[in-house]
């Protein structure tokens, strides 16, 4: 079956512009996560959605970052007024549900470059 897909695969933008990154999770997965990986760093948690519950936004680095998940499926991560330090690979993952033991399946990521 289809895995997690993300678009675009690469995005180059100018400082100050807004960007939207999209994630299509695996069908039937109720949990969706956004992480980012900056150069030479590990994956940093950003936000987590579980079903209809309020999202866990504890990892968002600033109020310029927001995310939504429509209809319990597709998610969009929006970065407003991008800064150079936002340059990173943004990774989306999904898993079956509430059990913390569920394996998270990752998409290929979106490489964001802010000039």
């Amino acid at each position, binding site marked *: 079956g289809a895995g*997690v897909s993300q678009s675009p695969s690469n995005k180059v933008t100018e400082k100050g512009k807004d960007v939207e990154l999209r994630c299509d999770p695996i069908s039937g997965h109720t*949990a969706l*996560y956004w*992480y980012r990986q900056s150069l*030479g*760093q*590990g*994956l*940093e*948690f950003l936000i*987590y959605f*579980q079903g209809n519950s309020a999202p*866990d936004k*504890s*990892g968002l680095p600033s109020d310029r970052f927001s995310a939504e998940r429509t209809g319990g499926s597709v998610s969009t991560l929006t970065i407003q007024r991008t800064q150079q330090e936002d340059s990173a690979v943004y*990774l989306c*993952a999904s*898993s079956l549900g*509430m*059990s*913390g*033991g*569920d*394996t*998270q*399946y*990752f*998409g*290929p*990521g979106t490489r964001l470059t802010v000039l």
Partner: protein
Amino acid sequence: DQQVKQNSPSLSVQEGRISILNCDYTNSMFDYFLWYKKYPAEGPTFLISISSIKDKNEDGRFTVFLNKSAKHLSLHIVPSQPGDSAVYFCAARARYNQGGKLIFGQGTELSVKP
């Protein structure tokens, strides 16, 4: 504060030998640990996991060991193969965080030489 640390950024091993990747953590609330493998331009893929109630979990060539008193875990790959060359990430989940949010280490790049 780095709650999950992989202190070796890289490791080079000869094909057929054992690869040992190490990971240390600081948060005693972590109860579930995972290893992910990542190839360039791809997302991480799940490799193996271990619950804090165990000290060892084995899956084929891959074994994860957990030493709770030392807050240390390791991944053993035996025998190592050139296709194992990738970046390996250690990750942990806290028992109070039933949502499954993972805390990742910085990664170790494994190179297996033929």
